[in-house]
């Protein structure tokens, strides 16, 4: 039924996306006495793509981990779809800078791993057709039975995207997802990500170092400043969707980039 070349046509019905809200969140690492985050508040409507950008050590990764329930906040709360985040949740999909595929599992076995952990082997086996479909949509269906060492960096991250999507999460948290890839692969992957997020209407939060990447993908960009980490600016990106590579050279795109950079510089000097 599904055709692979027709972009977006083969995606399953989008899961109900959820609003994400962070309320007066602070984080202190008591053991090191580091005040990592101070009074962070943000509201994301369902289906929003948001980026967190800021200098190294501004706590953007820490913030993402707290939002994903991997770290506890010292103060404040995170809510996803109206319920408080108190630990890892199945409605959250996560992606890391490295693909973190397990080398002893074939690509498709890696993709169904989240289901194997949450629902057991039988559920994972039953989900294989769905995993195959996901792999085909990102263009690596032919590598389903290959092992990670046979995949290139870009293919491995595509497999990691499928692994994130197999549980049909309503929010996606991406921690510098393509930071380890070369420029060209990175552009391709950003397009892939834009397409996936648009077709699923999932609420997404991405941590990135790249201003261009943030502008290219986001509806809203949160610029953070360091020590302690707080939000220095909230910039809405009013560029039309879908974004294309041609838009990067337009004055409008450049204007948003300049705005982000201005806040980054002043924020970094605080």
């Amino acid at each position: 039924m599904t055709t692979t070349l027709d972009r977006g046509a083969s995606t399953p019905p989008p899961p109900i996306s959820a609003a994400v809200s962070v309320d007066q969140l602070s984080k202190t690492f008591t053991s090191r006495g580091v005040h990592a985050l101070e009074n962070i508040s943000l509201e994301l409507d369902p289906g929003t793509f948001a980026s967190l950008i800021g200098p190294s050590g501004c706590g953007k990764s820490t913030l993402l981990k707290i939002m994903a329930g991997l770290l506890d906040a010292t103060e404040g709360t995170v809510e996803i779809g109206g319920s408080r985040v108190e630990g890892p949740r199945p409605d959250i999909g996560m992606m890391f800078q490295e693909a973190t595929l397990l080398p002893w599992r074939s690509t498709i076995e890696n993709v169904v791993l989240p289901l194997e952990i949450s629902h057991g082997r039988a559920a994972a086996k039953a989900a294989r057709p769905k995993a195959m479909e996901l792999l085909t949509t990102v263009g690596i269906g032919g590598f389903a039975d290959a092992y990670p060492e046979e995949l290139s960096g870009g293919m491995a991250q595509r497999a990691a995207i499928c692994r994130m999507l197999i549980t049909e999460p309503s929010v996606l948290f991406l921690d510098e997802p393509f930071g380890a890839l070369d420029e060209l692969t990175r552009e391709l992957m950003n397009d892939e990500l834009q397409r996936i997020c648009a077709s699923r209407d999932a609420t997404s939060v991405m941590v990135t170092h790249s201003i261009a990447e943030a502008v290219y993908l986001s509806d809203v960009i949160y610029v953070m400043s360091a020590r302690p980490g707080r939000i220095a600016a909230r910039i809405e990106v009013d560029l039309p969707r879908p974004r294309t590579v041609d838009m990067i050279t337009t004055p409008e795109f450049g204007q948003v980039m300049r705005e982000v950079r201005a806040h980054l510089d002043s924020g970094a000097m605080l």
Partner: protein
Amino acid sequence: MAVAQGTENTAMPQTVVTENAGSAVAASPRRAGARRGLPTAVNLAAFGVAVLAVWHLIAISGLVPPILFPGPVDVAQETWRTVVGMATGDHVLESLWITTSEILLGFVLAILVGFLLGCLVGETKFGTNVVMPYLVAINVMPKVAFAPVFVAWFGFGISSKVVMAAFIAFFPIIVDTAAGLASVERNKLMLFQSLGASRWQTLLKLKLPGALPHIFAGVKTAAVLVVVGAVVGEYLGGGNGLGELIKLSASQLRLDRVFAMIIFLSVVGLLLYALVGRIERKVVFWRHSSHLEINGS
């Protein structure tokens, strides 16, 4: 004596590895590989022949009494005689079987104890902080010195040798298992945490498979040590194994026989090592080719 035996056993598998590498290259369809592979094999054989020749020349020179220094021909003859004897079912076959069983049982025991203690040390704070220091203390003891203790506890039969063999061999498995469990990447741990994996799931699906290459390294070291342990056990604890026959032959100044026995022991050690290597290649299949893993760090 026992130590010398140990070194010999360690050296042998290495030789085999080189040989395998040489023949693998020679067998490869690429011509460049074939050209490079042949001289390696030839060099290897030539060196072996040279060593044998020097040995032979010293033996026939009359500089050393032949009874103390049998030449390669004497040793080869004696080895062949023993093999023929074994084929007709004399007592050497039984001794070889006894020693082999000690080695295998000791190996299994070492793997079981080493693996379980390795998991305890690698997985729990109690193991790391409380158990490990005592294990290190045991490891620095001269373990051979415990042989009479095991004889006193387990008698002159096979069990005292099995325990001695395991006792000498188990420590590297602990260290490598614990190190393997600790070698898991932080990002992969975070992935499992984000998937809501239990501690047990994380151990079974992430840490243990990831630790396998390390564990096999420890098991291979143990495969060499376990032969040392069994022979030391036999030297000090009697019995009917090859160690006892070596002692007996040496006391009768039948050094050709001693060397023949050492050859048998080496073959057993070699086969055990090769077996572990074969299993490793099957189990840790993803380590076959060179690393194409993308690394961000």
